[in-house]
């Protein structure tokens, strides 16, 4: 790939004698949406923490736009299953959290946050506190907080995992439409194969601990995608292939 946006180069992570990641490598092109799928405990979140700079790998590098950013923070946007909204801040206040933490939020920041909120359907809730919002709304605010950083690379770690199935589906469709507007490079972690296939350009399959990227599947489904993509024939083909790669010999009848 020429001129990749994000390169994860042979990352090894060992803690307390446990090898969490064993030479994981992955490359993301500009504007690509890549999901990482793997079984529980395979090290997805560790890889995530390495890319975001929270954890320094025992070995390996992370390159952003060609520059080594291993172990450094502040380069990527970041979102977890928990919305981590500050209960004492309003929707706008939470969206500008990044600015608040770096240099203090300005009026301009807040105006941009308000615009962002309006664009994504929360224009009536600018001054609401998080506890007054539903789970889906809160995750949207968290996402907007991530967007407000204007980082090119977004790391999303099972952001819809805590939502019920219906809301999750709606958030996935919403994310699809949002990504159409942005040109962000997104690394998405999930254990849900359907979700990975629906959202991504590529799906990387991770092995169990110690984690490696075992396979890299290109999702050929056409964009823009909507809810019918879930039941298209192409979807099932890709899903079959992914499941085989994911669970392989374990689940096929003998």
């Amino acid at each position: 790939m020429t001129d990749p946006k994000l390169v994860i180069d042979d990352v090894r992570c060992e803690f307390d004698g446990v090898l969490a990641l064993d030479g994981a490598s992955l490359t993301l092109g500009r504007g690509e949406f890549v999901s990482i799928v793997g079984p529980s405990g395979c090290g997805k979140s560790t890889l995530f923490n390495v890319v975001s700079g929270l954890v320094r790998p025992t070995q390996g590098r992370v390159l952003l736009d060609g520059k080594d950013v291993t172990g450094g923070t502040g380069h990527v946007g970041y979102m977890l299953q928990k919305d981590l909204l500050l209960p004492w801040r309003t929707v706008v206040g939470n969206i500008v959290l990044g600015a608040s933490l770096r240099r203090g939020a300005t009026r301009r920041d807040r105006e941009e946050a308000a615009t962002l909120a309006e664009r994504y359907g929360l224009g009536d809730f600018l001054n609401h506190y998080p506890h007054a919002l539903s789970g889906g709304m809160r995750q949207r605010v968290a996402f907007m907080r991530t967007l407000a950083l204007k980082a090119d690379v977004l790391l999303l770690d099972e952001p819809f995992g805590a939502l019920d199935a219906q809301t999750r589906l709606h958030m996935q469709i919403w994310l699809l439409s949002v990504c159409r507007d942005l040109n962000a490079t997104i690394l998405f972690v999930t254990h849900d194969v359907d979700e990975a296939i629906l959202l991504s350009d590529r799906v990387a399959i991770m092995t169990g601990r110690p984690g490696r990227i075992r396979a890299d599947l290109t999702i050929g489904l056409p964009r823009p995608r909507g809810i019918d993509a879930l039941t298209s024939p192409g979807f099932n083909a890709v899903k079959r292939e992914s499941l085989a790669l994911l669970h392989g010999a374990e689940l096929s009848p003998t």
Partner: protein
Amino acid sequence: MNARRFLQNAQRVGFVIAAIALIFGVWNAVIWMFGIQPFVLPTPQSAISAVVGQWSTLAPLTWQTVKETAEGFFIGAAIGFVLAVVMSAFRPVQRLIYPALIGSQAVPIVAIAAPLVILFGFGMLPKLIIVAWCVFFPVVVSVLDGLAHIDRDLVNLSRVLGARRVREFIVIRLPATLSPLFSGLKIGATYAVTGAVIGEWTASSQQGLGTFLLSANSSLNAPLVFGVTLLLTAVGVLSFLLVMAVESVATPWRSRSTAPRTLRRPGAGRLRGQDSGGAAAPGTLDARRLASTGHEQ
């Protein structure tokens, strides 16, 4: 909507009045049933009328005791808060002084009162120290707990967002202490009055309700003694309620859905309508859900 709020508040007040009336009723009934003599347990009516009758004397004394309570309370709260923040930031400091702080509460106040008076004389200072002594500990414990229980992931998030240590403290840690702080303050408020009275009993140059209590006791004036006790109780309860009121203003997110006007920052908003419904992005499930429940200011 105003009428409904009014009725709700009226209902609450009604309950409180009924509760007080019930207590007084039981009180009188007990006296009557067991034939308790008035100098052992006077009726609440006689206690209250004794206080009302002596109000011109009692008013300045009450003010004195309230002053001691309030000043000591603020000092104790400030000390407690600072100690908690310092201990949370520096582990070795916590290990060093926390046991001492716990031990300080085991010391009976009446034992320290006398040496305090010898050291600091008969003015306000020993009383403030005693009140602060009663107040600071619940504040230390609750704020320290609050700081300790900040979500690890939140701290990670702030680091990933590129936060500087100081800003992380101001934006994330400090506001997280507000709710636990008020828990501690509420407990401290109820103990503060007792501290003030004990301070006055030890040796006092200013006349407060505590010293008056001793004097009324020596006149064998039981209604007045009980009346002043009720007055002190009222001061304690009012302190508690006052802290609750401040809490609801200082932590509006605990009781409101939206930020009060005064706290809204510039740029935060062109609000399109405060009432129910609202034009959320069409086609989203949440918009429909919201339209049916409605939300309030």
